[in-house]
């Protein structure tokens, strides 16, 4: 039972990580709390659902949700965030919440308020490992999130592109002076992180076999708690924080029956974390 909950928690944590890493990347570059990131996640889920209905192929659906996510993310950046860069952060935060509400409501008006499910369950069957039951959908979610996170790690740590991204997030003007095209880099970062938000939407939709307009509500604010626990712009911090919060939720609800609602646990953990170590999880190991 306990180990079963750990598997469930890691699965959920992996999905949180896919969303939170993108959020941390965006915060690192533009210092914007990108609430609308969860709107991209919903758009990705819907794009994946409809493409899957047409093609019945998970690969094509995944690519479609990533592409749609990237386009929507770049549009938000170009039309809303870039013009607001010189104003105080609260203004882009409110604009971001406005974008998020508009996306969710737009989707509700176009596709209807009801829960949609995949025509054939995308992955059926399960594996038994000793006493553990790992369903196929869980395995896919885990594998895809681990693969994506390794890919993001490779891109940001091992390539010249990642180096340029780091430079822009450190200091935009300095990066420009060594002839890095910062606008292009910002766009790339948004395309990149939004693609993975879209993918996360498809994965969650397939995992619970339901896609609906308000599915972004919980991830929108929980991923904020996650990046605070992880240290705001730290990608590895966001990754570990996502896994820890995923585990914390499933174990405290599933094993210990904590009487609090599931979604406020992440925030309680966040407040405790802020009181102990405001610089986040990674700050504990670094001195």
């Amino acid at each position, binding site marked *: 039972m306990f180990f079963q909950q750990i598997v469930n928690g890691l699965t959920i944590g992996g999905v949180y990580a896919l969303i939170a890493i993108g959020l941390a990347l965006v915060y690192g570059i533009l210092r914007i709390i990108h609430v609308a990131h969860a709107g991209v996640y919903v758009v990705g889920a819907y794009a994946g659902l409809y493409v899957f209905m047409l093609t019945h192929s998970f690969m094509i659906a995944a690519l479609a949700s990533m592409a749609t996510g990237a386009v929507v993310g770049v549009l938000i950046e170009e039309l809303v965030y870039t013009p607001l860069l010189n104003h105080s952060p609260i203004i882009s935060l409110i604009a971001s919440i*406005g974008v998020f509400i508009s996306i969710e409501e737009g989707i509700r008006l176009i596709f209807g308020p009801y829960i949609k499910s995949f025509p054939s369950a995308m992955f059926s069957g399960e594996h038994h490992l000793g006493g553990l039951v790992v369903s196929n959908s869980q395995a896919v979610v885990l594998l895809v999130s681990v693969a994506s996170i390794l890919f993001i790690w490779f891109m940001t740590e091992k390539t010249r592109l990642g180096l340029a991204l780091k430079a822009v997030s450190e200091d935009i003007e300095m990066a420009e002076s060594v002839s890095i095209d910062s606008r292009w880099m910002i766009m790339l970062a948004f395309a990149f992180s939004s693609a993975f938000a879209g993918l996360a939407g498809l994965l969650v939709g397939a995992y619970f076999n339901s896609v609906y307009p308000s599915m972004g509500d919980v991830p929108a604010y929980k991923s904020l708690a996650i990046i605070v626990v992880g240290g705001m712009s730290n990608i590895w911090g966001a990754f570990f924080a996502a896994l820890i919060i995923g585990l914390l939720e499933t174990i405290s609800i599933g094993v210990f029956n904590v009487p609090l609602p599931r979604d406020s646990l992440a925030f309680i953990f966040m407040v405790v974390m*802020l009181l102990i170590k405001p610089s986040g999880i990674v700050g504990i190991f670094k001195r």
Partner: protein
Amino acid sequence: MSGYLITLAITVGIYMILALSLNIIVGYAGQISLGHAAFWAIGAYSFAILTTKYGLGFAGSAVLAVVITTLVGVFLGLPSLRVSEDFLAITTIGINFIVQGIFNSFDYFGGAMGIGGIPFPTFRGEMISNFAFMSIVYGFVAITIAISYGFKRSWAGLASFAIKDDELAASVSSVSPIRFKLLSFAIGSAIAGVSGVLYASFMSFISAADFSFPVSVTILAMVMVGGEATIIGPIFGSILLVILPEVFRFIHDYRMLLYGLLLVFMMRFQPDGFFGKRGIVWGIIRRFSKA
């Protein structure tokens, strides 16, 4: 005035008090708070519990509820002092979710069923009319405006503005940021508590869903759309954002979409709000006064 108009006026008045109280925290002290509905909830819930569970009188419970809200506001303001700007915004979102979660899941607070039977003010044993209640609400609106005005003009207000502009420079001139941030949190949450008492008494039934995070966003939007750090701004914002949904009732389905787009367009083209420094209203007045 018809019953509908009076109800609408009372709702507008309750939101005016809320928006003005948030304006003291956000506009004057520069503390981004996205969890103001939590303080509203604490005021409403303490009043509801004191009257229905402990049978305290109306005035006594109202005063106690405001005191409780102030204390909790200062207590919740303490962890917020350690963090600034973006962290603060996320912390206050968290406070909203935690407070709503607690009210929603403990039986002491009525759980998901909420609390009903909250008393309406009485005069000589008889319930007062809605019109009289409206006068009380606008009395408190007037008091809140007076407090806002006084705070803005006082030494504490000046100190808060200095901290908002440049915290380091202010602390070098021996203005203690902690003291004035806490002061603004205390005043802001006390007034939000007053608004909560009025709301609970008027509705006679409250549940945790009334104080969810979107409500906090709406209150902040009232301040920002009207123009932060002004007094007319939050008043105008609360009138606009309460009346608009009523006017657009006939296109019920599109209401939230329009609301989201309004937020985006306001921030994109009028980031200072209608009555802010570079707001559209002053621009129009200036143009006409020159001609």
